[in-house]
C-alpha cells in the first residue's frame, strides 16, 4: 500500500508508421472539428450562425472570378515564402526570418526601381531588380547561417532579430525617399512585371515553376540529399563526409534568396511599393506553419497554403472587428498541431486487473 503511486488509467506508446489514408483521415477530422469550433466561436463572438459562417466563407473566396484569381494570387505568395523556408527546415535550421528576408528582397527591388527606373528599359530594370532582391534575401539568410555554422549561434533568435532590422531599414529608406513625412511610398510607375491574362497570372506561374524546381532539388539532387542527412543527424552527416557547415550556409543562402524572389514578385507584380507593415504582413510566420503542415513536401504545400489562404480570405469580411481571421487560423492550427500526436502515438488503456500488480511483479 505505501509504495502505491497514482497511475493514469492509460499509457502512451509510439506507433509504427500509420497508413497514409488513416493519417489523412485524422488530419481531416481535426480540421472538421476545429472548423466546427470556429463556427461556434462565430456565434459567440460575432453573432453569426454556423450556416452563415460557412456560406460567407465560401462566398468570400469563390463567388466571383476576380475573387478566385485573388485567392490564387494570395496562395501563390504564401506558397513561395513557404517553399523558401522549406530547405532550411528540412535541415532542422529554424529559420523564422522569412518575414525579414522577403521584406529586404522587396526593399532591394524597390530601391533599384526608385533610382534606376528612369534610366533603364523595363526589361533590364526587371532583371536588375530581380538580382538585387535575390542578393539581399540571400545576404539576410547568409548572416545567421555563418554564425550558426561557425559558432552554433541560436538561429531562431538571430533570424527573428533580422526581421526587425529589415523593418527599420524599410522605415528608414521610406523616410529618406518620401519628404512629406507621410511614411507611405506611393506605388512606382516603373518596374512592373508584364501583364499576361491578368496581373496575377504571371506571378502564379512563376511560383508554380519554383515549386517544381524546389521539389526536384530536394528529392533528386545530391545537395537535396545532403540537406536531409544534416537534418536527420549532423554526426551522421560528418561521418559520411558531408561538410556540414558548407551545407548549412549554402542552404540558408538558397532559402533567403527564394524569399528575396517572393519579395521581388510582390513588388513587381502586386504592390510596386514597400512598407514595413503590409508588404509581407506576417506571411513569413504563417509560411512556417504552411511548410510544417505539408511535412516539408513542396507539392503538398500547394494544398496547405491554399487551405490557410482560404481560411484567411474567407473570414476576412465576416466580422467588422479586425483580426477574426487570426483567431480562426490560430484555432485550426492548434487542432492540426494537436492531431499529430494521434498519428505518432497511440493510447493504450490499462485493464482493470493489471493496474494492481505493482506489489509483486
Amino acid at each position, binding site marked *: 500500500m505505501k509504495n502505491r503511486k497514482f497511475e493514469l488509467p492509460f499509457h502512451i506508446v509510439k506507433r509504427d508508421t500509420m497508413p497514409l489514408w488513416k493519417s489523412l483521415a485524422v488530419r481531416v477530422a481535426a480540421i472538421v472539428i476545429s472548423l466546427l469550433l470556429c463556427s461556434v466561436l462565430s456565434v459567440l463572438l460575432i453573432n453569426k450562425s454556423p450556416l452563415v459562417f460557412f456560406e460567407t466563407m465560401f462566398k468570400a473566396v469563390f463567388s466571383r472570378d476576380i475573387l478566385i484569381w485573388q485567392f490564387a494570387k494570395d496562395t501563390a505568395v504564401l506558397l513561395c515564402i513557404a517553399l523558401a523556408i522549406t530547405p532550411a527546415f528540412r535541415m532542422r535550421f529554424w529559420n523564422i526570418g522569412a518575414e525579414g528576408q522577403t521584406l529586404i528582397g522587396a526593399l532591394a527591388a524597390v530601391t533599384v526601381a526608385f533610382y534606376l527606373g528612369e534610366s533603364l528599359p523595363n526589361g533590364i530594370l526587371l532583371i536588375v531588380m530581380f538580382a538585387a532582391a535575390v542578393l539581399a534575401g540571400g545576404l539576410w539568410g547568409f548572416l545567421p547561417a555563418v554564425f550558426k555554422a561557425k559558432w552554433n*549561434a*541560436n538561429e531562431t*533568435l538571430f533570424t527573428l532579430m*533580422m526581421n526587425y532590422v529589415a523593418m527599420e531599414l524599410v522605415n528608414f529608406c521610406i523616410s529618406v525617399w518620401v519628404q512629406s*513625412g507621410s511614411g507611405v511610398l506611393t506605388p512606382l510607375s516603373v518596374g512592373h512585371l508584364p501583364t499576361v491574362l491578368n496581373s496575377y497570372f504571371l506571378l502564379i506561374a512563376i511560383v508554380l515553376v519554383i515549386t517544381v524546381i524546389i521539389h526536384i532539388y530536394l528529392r533528386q539532387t545530391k545537395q537535396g540529399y545532403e540537406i536531409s542527412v544534416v537534418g536527420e543527424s549532423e554526426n551522421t552527416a560528418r561521418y559520411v563526409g558531408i561538410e556540414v557547415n558548407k551545407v548549412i550556409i549554402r542552404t540558408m543562402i538558397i532559402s533567403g534568396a527564394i524569399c528575396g524572389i517572393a519579395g521581388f514578385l510582390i513588388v513587381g507584380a502586386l504592390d510596386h511599393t514597400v512598407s514595413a507593415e503590409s508588404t509581407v504582413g506576417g506571411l513569413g510566420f504563417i509560411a512556417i506553419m504552411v511548410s510544417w503542415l505539408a511535412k516539408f513536401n513542396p507539392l503538398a504545400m500547394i494544398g496547405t497554403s491554399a487551405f490557410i489562404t482560404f481560411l484567411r480570405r474567407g473570414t476576412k469580411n465576416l466580422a467588422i472587428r479586425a483580426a477574426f*481571421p487570426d*483567431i480562426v*487560423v490560430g484555432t485550426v492550427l492548434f487542432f492540426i*498541431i494537436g492531431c499529430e500526436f494521434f498519428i505518432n502515438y497511440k493510447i493504450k488503456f490499462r485493464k482493470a486487473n493489471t493496474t494492481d500488480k505493482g506489489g509483486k511483479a
Partner: protein
Amino acid sequence: MNPFLDYLLNAISLGMTFLLGCTGEILTEKVGHLNLGIPGIMSVGGACGCIALKLMYGSNIPPALILIISILASFVGGLLMGAIYSFLTVSLKANQNVTGLAMTTFGVGVTKFIMSEFSVKNAHQFLYALEYFRFPFAKNETALKYWGVMLYLAVIIALVTSFVLSRTRVGLHLRAVGENPAAADAVGINVTLYKYGSTCIGSGIAALGGLYYIMNYMGSAEAYKRIESLGWLAVALVIFSLWKPHLSIIASTLFGMLYIAGTRLPTLLGIKIDTSAIYLFQMLPYVVTIIVLIISSIRNKKENQPPASLGLPYFREER
C-alpha cells in the same frame, strides 16, 4: 529634472515590460520549453486586464481591489494560454516552435479583436484606472509618473524567480527537468507536473508584461499594437541575460534605454539629427541582441548555455 535622469527613469519603466516577459520565458525555458508564443501571451494578458477594468468601470469597488483584480485577470489569461501551450507541447509532444508561433498568431488576433472595441472614444472605460496603476506618482509630470505599482511588482517577481531557481529544492528539480528530463524522471521528479507548472506560471508572469505596458507605461487605447514586437525582444532578452532573472533587471533597463534612444539621445547630447535617422536608432536593440548572441556563442562558457534539453519533447518510453 535632469534630462539624463529623466531618460534613465523612462528607460527603466519601459524595461519592466521586457523584464516581465523575460522572467516568464526564463521559467519556461528552464524546464526545456522554448515558448515562442510569449508575444501573443503578453498581448492576451494586456487584453484580459483591460476587460476586467472595463467590467469594473463605474462600479464602487475600491481602487486597490480594482488594481488587484485586473492584475489577476491578466495573470489568469496568461495561465490559460500557457495551459494550451503546455497541453500541446508536453502532453501531445507537438513541435514547440510551430506551437509557439501559432500561439502568437492566435494571441495577437484575440487581442486585436478584443481591443478594437475600445476605440479612442471609449478608451476611458479602462483608462480611468491609470492613476491606480501609476500610484503613487500618478500626478507627477516627469518620467517618475511611470513608476507605478506594477514596476515594483516586476522587480520583486524577477528576484523571487531568481531565488527560487537557484536556491530552492523546487528550483533544483525544475532545472534538472530542463537539463535532462530522463534523469529527473528516474530520481522520481514528476516531469510532467514541473513542465506544466513552470510553463503556465511563466506564461502568467509574461502576461503581466502586456498589462503593464498598456496601463502603467503607455496609458493609451492604441498601446496593444506594439506589444507583439516588444514580446519578441523579451524572448531575445532571455539570451542576453543568460537565463538569470536578476541579471535581466539590468539587461531590460539597457534594452529600455536602447529602445527609446532614437528620440532621447540626440536631444540629450545636444546634437541635431535627421528625422529618418531615428529609424536607425530603433534598430539598436535588435542589432545589440544579435551581437550579444554572437559573442556569447563564441565565448561558449558552460554556465552561460541554454538548458540542455531546450526544444526537445520528452517521451518516457524513448529513454
